[in-house]
């Protein structure tokens, strides 16, 4: 009911669900679910078909269809939402409404994929049939509805975020796909390094978690296979309600984990959408929200890895893997936050406009001001400090060799700070596309050396150059064992962290010098402008005459620009 009080949600329902559209989508839904049921019934009646639980199997497939509809149809609609508002020039008027960006974003989140929701909704009575026929427990029906709804919201949040970030409609769909893909990569990195532990993957990725949930939920995995006998050695997993994920040594029901993880990601994406609705020139996340997101993600990461981190060392086994996973995942989170906290080039130049010469370090290290256009460096330093403290704590607790972990911490910290400085430099260098250029450079840095070294058949050097390879080497305990290290007599443990720290330092200097350069140019322009104004006035005065006096009056009306430090009205100074 609360949703129906949201004007944006109501508008989207009205726009998208006119009677004709409703009729068409209901017909499509009935055709899909009814057709499937009818088809399965016919197959069952077909002579020679092995017996299978019709309604159970129908339930499993129908949930899959619902999820497919809310995923593929829903994400497309969500990705179009804000991009279309921009194209139709309604975006500005939405930003002006007093109900605020958070309520506006909530309305969009719930209503942007109304047609997809409608098709999923038509399936609900069909899902109820197996429960009514007592072929599945009733809680399983409720859980299925909840999972489809929550996952739909997650997908909509991904689509909306893409829509809010993309500048044009065609970009939005592609970006939504890329965002979805990044969830797979991220969880792949976390879970893959942890030996493919499914609970870990699940805990980090709503999509993988969903797959797990559907697998556990499936009556097919709990009973006879629908179209054939169960394979030999097949052990059915526990029922969905009983499957657990480990979190700080506690067993959390998979369903609860699913809700929590989706809620976390939805909230982060929702914050980005609301921020973009507030002002598309601002950074993707405010510093406060960025810090909260970092804290929550680190908490979940540590909770997921807790058991493995505290395992007692076993002789002959490499136990560094969980810690390597923690460092690697933290690096991804910090790098993502470096992008999310960087303001637009225009806002950055605005901040410089209010500064005077030689204030470049003050601007470089500013944490926040009332116009929210501070560079992200100091915020990132604080986040990195948070990471370092947590990582050191885990290093001590895990009883693993501290030196290697500290080297990995140094690498992650330096990499995150270096990337932040690089993004700041690019924003100060270009009028537009600084973040895109930064993303391109980052990808190039991660891929190009790999390709070159693989072509040259010197993969060992990757430990010196590539942070991903370093983390893999760290996890495998390979950093001191490779052929190159033996030949060069160089321990790779500290080489890349130190080199990265030096590069990060240089990038910080470069960014600060770029700020200084812009401030110097600005100062010179101001002086030149003042000189021009004075010259013009003198010329007019010498020329005399009515026309000259008129021009002088005009010049007097158009007051020359004042240096920002002087004559500014009270309250317009940036506040720390």
């Amino acid at each position: 009911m609360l949703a129906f009080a949201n004007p944006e949600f109501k508008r989207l329902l009205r726009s998208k669900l006119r009677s004709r559209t409703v009729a068409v989508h209901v017909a499509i839904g009935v055709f899909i679910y009814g057709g499937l049921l009818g088809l399965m019934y016919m197959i069952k009646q077909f002579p020679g078909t092995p017996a299978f639980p019709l309604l159970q199997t129908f339930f499993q497939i129908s949930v899959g269809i619902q999820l497919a509809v809310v995923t593929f149809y829903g994400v497309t609609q969500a990705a179009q939402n804000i991009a279309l508002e921009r194209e139709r020039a309604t975006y500005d008027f939405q930003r002006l409404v007093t109900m605020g960006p958070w309520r506006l974003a909530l309305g969009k989140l719930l209503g942007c994929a109304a047609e997809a929701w409608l098709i999923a909704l038509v399936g609900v009575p069909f899902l109820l049939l197996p429960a009514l026929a007592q072929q599945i427990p009733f809680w399983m029906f409720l859980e299925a509805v909840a999972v489809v709804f929550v996952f739909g919201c997650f997908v909509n949040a991904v689509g909306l975020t893409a829509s809010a970030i993309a500048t044009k409609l065609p970009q939005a769909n592609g970006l939504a796909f890329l965002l979805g893909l990044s969830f797979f990569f991220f969880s792949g990195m976390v879970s893959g390094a942890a030996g493919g532990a499914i609970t870990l993957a699940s805990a980090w990725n709503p999509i993988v978690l969903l797959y797990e949930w559907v697998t556990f939920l499936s009556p097919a995995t709990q009973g006879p296979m629908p179209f054939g006998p169960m394979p030999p050695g097949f052990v059915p997993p526990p029922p969905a309600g009983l499957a657990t994920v480990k979190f700080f040594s506690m067993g959390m029901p998979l369903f609860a984990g699913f809700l929590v993880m989706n809620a976390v990601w939805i909230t982060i994406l929702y914050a980005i959408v609301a921020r973009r609705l507030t002002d598309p020139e601002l950074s993707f996340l405010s510093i406060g929200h960025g810090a909260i997101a970092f804290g929550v993600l680190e908490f979940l990461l540590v909770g997921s890895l807790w058991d493995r981190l505290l395992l007692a060392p076993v002789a002959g086994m490499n136990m560094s893997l969980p810690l390597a996973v923690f460092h690697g995942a933290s690096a991804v989170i910090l790098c993502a936050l470096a992008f999310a906290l960087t303001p637009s080039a225009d806002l950055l130049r605005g901040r410089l406009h209010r500064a005077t010469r030689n204030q470049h370090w003050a601007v470089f290290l500013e944490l926040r001001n009332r116009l929210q256009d501070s560079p992200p460096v100091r915020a990132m330093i604080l986040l990195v400090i948070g990471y370092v403290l947590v990582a050191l704590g885990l290093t001590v607790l895990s009883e693993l060799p501290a030196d290697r972990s500290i080297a990995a911490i140094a690498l992650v910290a330096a990499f995150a700070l270096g990337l932040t400085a690089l993004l700041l430099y690019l924003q100060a260098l270009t009028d537009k596309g600084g973040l895109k250029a930064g993303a391109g450079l980052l990808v190039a840095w991660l891929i190009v050396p790999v390709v070159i070294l693989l072509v040259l058949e010197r993969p060992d050097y990757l430990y010196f150059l590539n942070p991903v390879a370093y983390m893999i080497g760290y996890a495998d305990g390979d950093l001191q064992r490779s052929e190159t290290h033996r030949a060069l007599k160089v321990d790779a443990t500290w080489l890349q962290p130190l080199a990265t720290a030096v590069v990060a330092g240089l990038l910080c200097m470069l960014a600060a010098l770029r700020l200084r350069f812009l401030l110097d140019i600005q100062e010179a322009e101001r002086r030149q402008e003042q000189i021009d104004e004075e010259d013009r006035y003198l010329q007019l005065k010498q020329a005399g005459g009515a026309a000259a006096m008129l021009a002088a009056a005009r010049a007097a009306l158009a007051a020359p620009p004042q240096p920002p430090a002087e004559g500014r009205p009270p309250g317009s100074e940036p506040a720390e």
Partner: protein
Amino acid sequence: MIETFGLTRKYGKLTAVRNVDLHVPEKTIYGFIGPNGAGKTTTLRMLGTLLRPTDGRILVDGLDPADDPAGVRRRIGFLSDTFGLYDDLLVWEYLEYFCGAHNVEPTTEKIDTILHLVQLYHKRDEYVGRLSRGMRQRLGIARAIVYEPRVLLLDEPASGLDPIARIALRDLLKTLRDRGTTILVSSHILTELSDFCDTVGVMELGRLIAQGSIKEILEQTRTQMRLVLEVLEPKAKAVEALADVPQVVDVAVVKEHIEMGFTGKREDLPAVHKKLVEAGVPVVAFYPKPENLEDLFLRLSTGATN
């Protein structure tokens, strides 16, 4: 009602608005004039909280958008030349949405009153997408005033409208002003503003080069009066006679009459008239040329744009 102090906005290296000190009195219509690219829209977008200023401060009804954007949004209605309408909604649904979005109870009575005011009641149950351009523009204004804002910011509201729609717009703005709304309207079509603006601001190259009532600015910036002399043929005799008057400059025959500049005072005019009559010039009419917003703009502007 609206004040800005040193308002500045940069886009990359371009300074679109430079140190603008705006002063819009309460319950007046303020015309914002200037050529395309002068910085009018950027200024309006900053006032409307759609754009952050690079520098300077804005006060709308005493509130700074940087500190209280929601408070400022409650006080302003904004309309751009794109109108920003949802074609797939009915007219009343559209207004109901914006009422709700501005936390105002969307009663039928309220929506109908607004529709009557903008003369769209007969289109109440029509799809927005089926309205003509003039109607869409009026619906845009209805959207901007449906939650009764104290300030209206209108960016080129009359562009693309036919003369009848322009007259309707002018009357509507006067009605709103009389009801106590402060209106800031930008345009580069000067004739549409000159009839109803109480105050004007002239922008060029991102700077506010003049501000005040049209009369005030005309008087402030006038260095000579333009006079019109209508005489019977031949006009050469009149031109000859005028050459002897030291305060008369730039004499030119324009179609059926003679125009000239006059550097003297108004009180000196009877003497000129007397001289003409004494010289045997058959004077039909002799009067100061009336000046309007267009003259003011031409006088102040160099025509340069960003």
